[in-house]
């Protein structure tokens, strides 16, 4: 299969899975197996792309001309390829987990749930391989709209309110700010293609650069940059598989992925460095990192705490872009992979606890570790990876970011990163400590009684993944290197 | 600077002033009267002022009716035509069309009033407004609370 075919097939397979879901909506096992096969085939397609292209950058191929100068077009470049690999790879695990979760919880509207899920995956792949800002924006919005029913899934007033916040912020920022920025870029430069070294240089000067960057940075609401972060905690009313895949991986990573793409291919790292336009963004990201961590410490609801942790971690990636050095951008790119692996582990563990014992608050989980050692073990590994301790994957991007801050002479940023790690320790480890070491109160089971197999196996696998990634960080760095080298 | 009040100009354009007065009278009736039939009357006056405006612009100073003079053998009498000035017939023709439209509008309006009288039992705008407000209030009472007030 050639590369473009593989991309198209990878985008169509989730839709096929959706059709299958609708067709076999009454046959539980057929339906779920079918989706699993589709998920694996999707991953296979992305692997084919990987083996074809490696870490090269291909020429954009236009699928469709919308109007003059605007195409729906795709190409392969390392960052997008990595994003697609993460998205489709974790879909397999999340699907397995989702089946266990939905059955374990007897959730309703199976068909709608998995159908929207499939559209979301398809648009993630579209985002990953988009070769211009228009295509990216198209799939970005499809992702927003298709995940809305997932957040509102339960249909209770609380979840409707949550879903409204979710939609209002994501659609609001993307239409009001990002769209303006995109059209403005188009008016200024006459193109929206992602080009190495950026397209804006020579077309804009002065105050417009930081303003445009601001429109993009806040407009990409999915990157949850403060003050547009509220949607992420609000989205936690969704069933956990959604939170796991979409709000730890697909949606938020689509946000920071877009942020990196804009920084690297629209503005260009060098252009940002020359104009100093991104300095304010760097400070804002630093503020986001600390503030969200502090807020996370005071959350008792486990999923909410994880959500704030995500906000903080996403700002690492924005920070990487805003530092405007190659090292920073690489660190940001790598963090997409590392954080995805770590955070999905944590979310799946939270879901497993909910499925088995229906506990959502951290204070209720005291002593629960004795009953669920595997789940909490995986949670521990995930936490350590988020904190950034060796030998876990999460340590490398922090290292790269710190190097980048030294390069640019922003020593305060190093302090911020270190403080953030400490705060991570303070809000993540007590969860595990409480579960394992505090005496269990009355009524909490102490005998080994794990969640269903399909609920604890996936987080265990991703936890192992966190360890494995530590040893392959070098390869990821080499893999991503072409995105910042100016020569094509 | 022109004079504040150019009497000669005003006298020369007296017919326009008349149309304006007529037009404003019509519009005022439409806006002011609450009786639906009277509104239609106002509308007619308003339209008629425009008809007259059109008719007047067809008038040419010293012009006669735009009919070809004929000689005994019913041929156009070119001799009689020489030096003759005619009024412009086109605006008159146009306004014939507009009059037809006006009649159609009036009759449709009156027919509507008959139907309104049948179903509202009044042709006074204020009464109708009150009835409609009641209907709206009832609608709101019945339907104002979708999704338990969440919508």
């Amino acid at each position: 299969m050639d590369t473009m075919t593989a991309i198209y097939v990878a985008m169509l397979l989730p839709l096929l899975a959706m059709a299958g879901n609708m067709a076999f909506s009454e046959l539980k096992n057929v339906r779920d197996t079918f989706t699993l096969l589709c998920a694996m085939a999707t991953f296979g397609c992305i692997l084919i792309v990987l083996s074809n292209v490696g870490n090269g950058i291909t020429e954009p191929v236009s699928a469709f001309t919308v109007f003059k100068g605007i195409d729906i077009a795709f190409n392969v470049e390392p960052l997008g390829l990595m994003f697609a690999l993460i998205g489709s790879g974790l879909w397999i695990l999340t699907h397995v987990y989702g089946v266990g979760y939905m059955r374990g919880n007897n959730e309703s509207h199976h068909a709608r749930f998995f159908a929207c899920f499939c559209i979301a995956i398809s648009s993630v792949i579209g985002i990953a391989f988009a070769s211009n800002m228009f295509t990216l924006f198209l799939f970005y919005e499809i992702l927003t709209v298709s995940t809305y029913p997932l957040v509102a899934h339960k249909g209770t007033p609380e979840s409707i309110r949550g879903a409204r916040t979710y939609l209002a912020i994501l659609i609001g920022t993307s239409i009001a700010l990002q769209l303006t920025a995109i059209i403005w870029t188009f008016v200024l430069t006459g193109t929206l293609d992602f080009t190495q070294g950026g397209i804006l240089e020579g077309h804009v000067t002065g105050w417009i650069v930081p303003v445009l960057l601001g429109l993009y940075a806040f407009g990409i609401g999915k990157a949850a940059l403060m003050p547009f972060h509220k949607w992420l905690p609000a989205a936690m009313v969704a069933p956990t598989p959604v939170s796991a895949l979409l709000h730890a991986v697909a949606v938020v990573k689509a946000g920071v992925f877009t942020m990196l793409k804009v920084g690297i291919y629209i503005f260009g790292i060098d252009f940002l460095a020359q104009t100093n336009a991104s300095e304010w963004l760097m400070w804002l990201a630093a503020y986001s990192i600390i503030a969200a961590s502090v807020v996370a410490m005071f959350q008792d609801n486990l999923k909410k705490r994880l959500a704030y942790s995500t906000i903080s971690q996403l700002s690492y990636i924005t920070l990487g872009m805003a530092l405007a050095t190659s090292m920073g951008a690489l660190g940001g790119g790598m963090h997409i992979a590392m954080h995805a692996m770590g955070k999905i582990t944590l979310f799946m563990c939270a879901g497993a606890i909910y499925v088995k014992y229906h506990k959502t608050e951290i204070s209720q989980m005291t002593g629960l570790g004795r009953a669920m050692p595997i789940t909490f073990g995986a949670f521990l590994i995930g936490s350590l990876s988020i904190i950034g301790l060796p030998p876990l994957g999460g340590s490398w991007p922090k290292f790269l970011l710190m190097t980048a801050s030294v390069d640019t002479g922003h020593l305060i940023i190093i302090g911020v990163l270190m403080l953030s790690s400490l705060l991570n320790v303070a809000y993540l480890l007590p969860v595990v400590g409480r579960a394992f070491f505090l005496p269990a109160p009355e009524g909490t089971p102490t005998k080994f009684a794990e969640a269903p197999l399909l609920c604890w196996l996936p987080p265990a696998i991703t936890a192992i993944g966190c360890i494995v990634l530590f040893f392959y960080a070098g390869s990821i760095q080499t893999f991503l290197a072409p995105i910042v080298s100016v020569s094509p | 600077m022109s004079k504040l009040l150019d009497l000669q100009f005003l006298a020369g354009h007296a017919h326009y002033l008349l149309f304006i007065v007529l037009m404003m009278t019509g519009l005022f009736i439409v806006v002011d009267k609450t009786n639906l039939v009277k509104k239609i009357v106002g509308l007619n006056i308003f339209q008629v002022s425009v008809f007259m405006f059109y008719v007047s612009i067809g008038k040419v100073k010293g012009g006669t009716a735009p009919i070809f003079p004929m000689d005994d053998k019913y041929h156009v009498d070119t001799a009689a035509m020489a030096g003759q000035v005619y009024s412009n017939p086109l605006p008159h023709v146009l306004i014939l069309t507009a009059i037809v439209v006006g009649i159609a509008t009036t009759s449709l309006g009156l027919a509507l009033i008959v139907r309104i009288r049948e179903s509202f039992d009044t042709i006074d705008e204020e009464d109708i407004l009150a009835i409609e407000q009641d209907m709206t209030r009832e609608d709101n009472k019945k339907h104002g609370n979708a999704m338990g007030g969440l919508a």
Partner: protein
Amino acid sequence: MADTAQVVEHTARTLRDHLPVLQVLVPFVTAPLIVLLGSRRLAWPLAFIASAVALVISFIMLMEVREGGMLTYTMGGWAPPLGIEYRVDAANAFVLLLISLIGTVVLPFAYASFRDEIKSRDHTLMYACWMLCFTGLLGMVATGDAFNVFVFLEISSLSTYVLVAMGADRDRRALTAAYDYLIMGTIGATFFVIGLGMLYMATGTLNMADMADRIADQGMNRTVRSGFAFIMVGMGLKVAMFPLHLWLPKAYTFAPSAVTVFLSATATKAALYVMMRFTFSVYNPDFAFATNTLEIIFIPLAVIAMFSASFVAVFQTNFKRMLAYSSIAQVGYMLLGVALLTDTGLTAAILHMFNHGLTKGLLFMGVGAYVLRANGSFYTQIAGLGRKMPITTGAVVIGGLSLIGVPGTAGFISKWILVEAALERAPEHAMFLAIAVAIVLSSLLAVVYVWRAFEVLYLSEPDPNSTATEAPLMMLIPMWILAGGCIWFGFSTELLHDTAVQAANGLLQGSQGMLVIPDQGGAH
């Protein structure tokens, strides 16, 4: 434009040459035919065939003129400027296509909807009226004679009042709605005639091309100027330009569902076309006062309409009424595009005319289906219908997304170009930057009001006593044709965009676009 000059014979000879007049004549003849035959069974097929023929004609004409050039037809062989001339260039061919497309697609829907909403003895006359309205709208757009515009405007308006009043079978407020519309509409049309009278006084001609030529020759004077004011106000009433929009919400809410579909998608668009034709072709847009009027009066009014009408729409409890207010806001977008006075802005306005026609037509059809099955369109009545009528609601969702302007839908394309047009002028004046922001901000209000409807449709529990089932096929097919259009034109805009650019160029060249007077007519 000398290359498009063509010598027109006194009489057109082939069928192809007759297309501009056949466009209007076919439905015009059908209307009395329906009445004369008086057969309830024949009324609908006749109307449908006439609309379909009109659609084919308008499509052929669009294909002929989309690369530039124009088709002219002289009524009865009388050469313009004395005779009445029909003149079709890219701009009117585009609007003609929209009107005949909507007219044709809506008719099957109307068949199903009328059977439910209108007493069966009125059906025959209803279709006759429908055809007259259709004729009037087509004629307004196709003709090149200024007074002819008025005649067709009144033909369409008078039949519209009747059509709106027929909603009285369901709600007696339709009668007063029709009456209000009649008063306002007549005032608007009469204003238009006054404006025409002044232009006639100044130029002595009624042919629009000739008129443009003579205005260009004599320059501005007070008569021509006040004529402009009267025409703009008169057409503004028909377009429902804020603050002349008061007739619209009530008329749209209480008219029979199919009538609302038809009117919302076509009537305001035809009037807007006339407005553009007069602003850009008859008057030269270079005249300072025209520019100033548009920039100083239209832009603020358009922006106010975008926000205030959207804001009111947010608080409606009736889906149909909400959509009516949304229409006023959308007219604001189109007027804004016109008032930007650039190629891109005008392209956006023309494109939005078409795309909004598709979108609103689709949404009002959804309303019609709900009225048929749930007997009303209040939010409490349509609650939870997403599950009971999934195919209908699926189409409504597509329409709603297109109304918001979500990427991948037709509404997105026109909004994109509109923002682009505003930003293009940003280097001139920072005001245009603010306008671009206003466009995107006001579309956020669209998110709010559309999403309210979505939530009601999908997330609330259906009425336990409701017996609603899926709408009949006669409704679903038209709906999905338009829904398909909303998606298709969101991706493939080649045909629409290129034609709109062509139309905008033609219009913006001002009187030059109309200068070519065939053969012996024209400037003396």
